């Protein structure tokens, strides 16, 4: 008789070895991030020595002062927070609204429009970079945060995600029952559907926030002055200086990564499970 195992196909004796290998790989994967934090506490002199320093140094305060002296750093942090938050809030609203519309209504042209939406997903983002710049320039929005979060408010990917989730979670009967009570469509969306799709909203929120926080090419093309720079741009401007104070630069990178790390620490399950669900359903 084959013993029923809890986990899938089952590989018995090798499991401890596998676990060790996986652990080693995990440590190797995380190493560059650990390295980032170590180097952030060193100065250029100690960073560029052989063998390199693996333990934390003492230059944290000095690097921090250098960072503030070279960049309007907290302003840049605020810019990143502002753009990412606004992008997330607007994306959540518009994508869930459109996903609601696609999922629970039968209207003329629905399939065509949805097909169009899917087709737009296949367009590589790079194709749009020159036109994006030109239209932003035309609108006079160059060097403004608005140019970063406004165009992507209703993202095709977000709508797709929401639509899939809503379609599989909310039944038409529920909607009809609400209609019978005299609710307007928007009211149904807001009070009935939204609360029920919180997990998908959370996933979309996280993915959008992370994506906007790390966005580099968009800001590179649109933003021109240090005061409006988001974090990735601010960090890159540090890289270009010939007298690069590497301790300062790395501290900047570490500080730029910390918020997302914290976010991920609390929400990793949500992100991964949301992605998983999306991948399977999609």
């Amino acid at each position, binding site marked *: 008789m084959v013993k029923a195992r809890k986990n899938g196909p089952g590989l018995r004796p090798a499991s401890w070895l596998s676990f060790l290998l996986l652990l080693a790989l995990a440590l190797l994967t995380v190493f560059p991030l650990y390295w980032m934090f170590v180097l952030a506490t060193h100065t250029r002199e100690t960073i*560029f020595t052989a063998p390199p320093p693996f333990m934390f140094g003492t230059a944290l305060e000095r690097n921090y002062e250098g960072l503030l002296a070279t960049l309007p750093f907290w302003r840049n942090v605020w810019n990143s927070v502002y753009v990412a938050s606004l992008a997330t809030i607007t994306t959540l609203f518009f994508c869930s609204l459109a996903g609601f519309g696609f999922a629970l209504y039968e209207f003329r042209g629905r399939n065509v429009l949805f097909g169009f939406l899917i087709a737009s997903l296949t367009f590589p983002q790079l194709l749009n970079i020159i036109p994006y710049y030109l239209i932003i*320039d035309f609108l*006079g929005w*160059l*060097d403004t945060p608005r140019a970063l979060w406004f165009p992507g408010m209703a993202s095709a990917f977000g709508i797709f995600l929401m639509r899939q989730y809503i379609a599989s979670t909310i039944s038409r009967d529920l909607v009809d029952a609400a209609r019978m009570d005299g609710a307007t469509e928007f009211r149904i969306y807001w009070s009935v559907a939204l609360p029920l799709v919180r997990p998908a909203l959370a996933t979309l929120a996280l993915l959008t926030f992370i994506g906007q926080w790390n966005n580099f090419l968009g800001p590179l093309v649109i933003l*021109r*002055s*240090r005061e409006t720079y988001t974090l990735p741009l601010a960090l890159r*401007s*540090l890289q*270009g*200086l*010939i*007298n690069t104070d590497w301790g300062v630069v790395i501290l900047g990178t570490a500080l730029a990564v910390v918020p997302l790390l914290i976010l991920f620490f609390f929400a990793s399950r949500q992100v991964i499970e949301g992605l998983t669900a999306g991948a399977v359903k999609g």
Partner: protein
Amino acid sequence: MLKPARVILATLLLALGAAFAQTNISIALYPDLDSHLNAVLEQFHAENPDIIVEVRILEHGDHHTALVTNLATGSGAADVVAIDVGFIARFVADGGLVDLNSEPYNAGQYQDIFAEYAWLQASTTDGRLVAMPTDLGPGVMYYRRDRFEQVDANVEDVIADWDSFLEFGRAVTRDTDGDGQIDVYLIADAGDVARAMFRANIAPGDGVFFGADGTPLVTNERFVEAFRVAKAIRDDGLDARIGAWSNEWYEAFKRGTVAVQLSGAWLLGHLQNWMAPETAGLWGASNLPNGIYGSWGGSFYGIPEQSANKDAAWRLIEFLTTNPDIQLAAFDRIGAFPAVTSTYGAPLFDEELAFLDGQQARLLFSEVANNIEGRATHPGDNVAEEIVNSALSQVLDEGRDIEEALAEAQQLIARRTR
């Protein structure tokens, strides 16, 4: 009204009036120009109390990219913009900057006090001046005295021509401590020699990369010879193959791994301030080998057409560029070699520089500055430079045939600048 009230009211009105009379201008710079500006800003404000200056800094590459797009879109540029010599030609051609020869600036009145070639660099063929020169980069060779002594070499002999330079290279490149690895090299990058060579001995009327008629000329003898010498250096293993401004490069200066470095005079400031201060006294400066005179770097200040405060902007530029004291202050503080040649007689120039073992190197710099010949600029200059550098890299690193690489570069440049 009661008397005190009248006084207060009058003061308020005066203050308001003063506020209205004040002009706010902005200046966009890249490092290290800002350290100098911040130091002299007080004096400027004392002489021009109605002008308030806001300083904007961006890193060198970002600064020029932003400037290019600001001029392209017609908005966002500061009132005064610093422009590096590598980009000046482009702005000469593309436009977007005010012609400073026109009324009411009449920059032409100052023409004689500036180094001629720098003035020409910022001038168009139809007589417009798009920016004022502020500093130059006279090309010199910095060398390690101790490395020369160790092989009994005399600097004057070494720089007589390229052959003696290479001969010296072969002598000095060696393993000094017996560990099987070469510890001293002639130079950090053979490419530097090529770049020095093709920027010199330019036929009158031609530019570095383009002829008087605007066609690229990178396949001519000047380039072939430059590439050939560099290749000889590389093939003999005389260069350390270290990229400029990398950490290994800084280390090389600290340890004396390279015997010479061809560069603009401004390198001295970097060396003594942060790159290798502990090597003070071990260096010397000389002319470039083979009697060539070249320029490495230089900055200009211009006023974008879109500026709403051109007059105030011009006052700032005049202050920074035509005032000999301010020019000398920049020289002293950030090593920016003055574009105003009349300053070259100042006592500052006779100073014995400790870093160079007491050499009165500034006299050398001014001699070089006076001997650099003006040459035509072309808007495609920095694109051409990128392409030629790429070709050079292919020849040195991948052993590509020189004529072939230059022919391809010629083609690329012609296309790119159509």
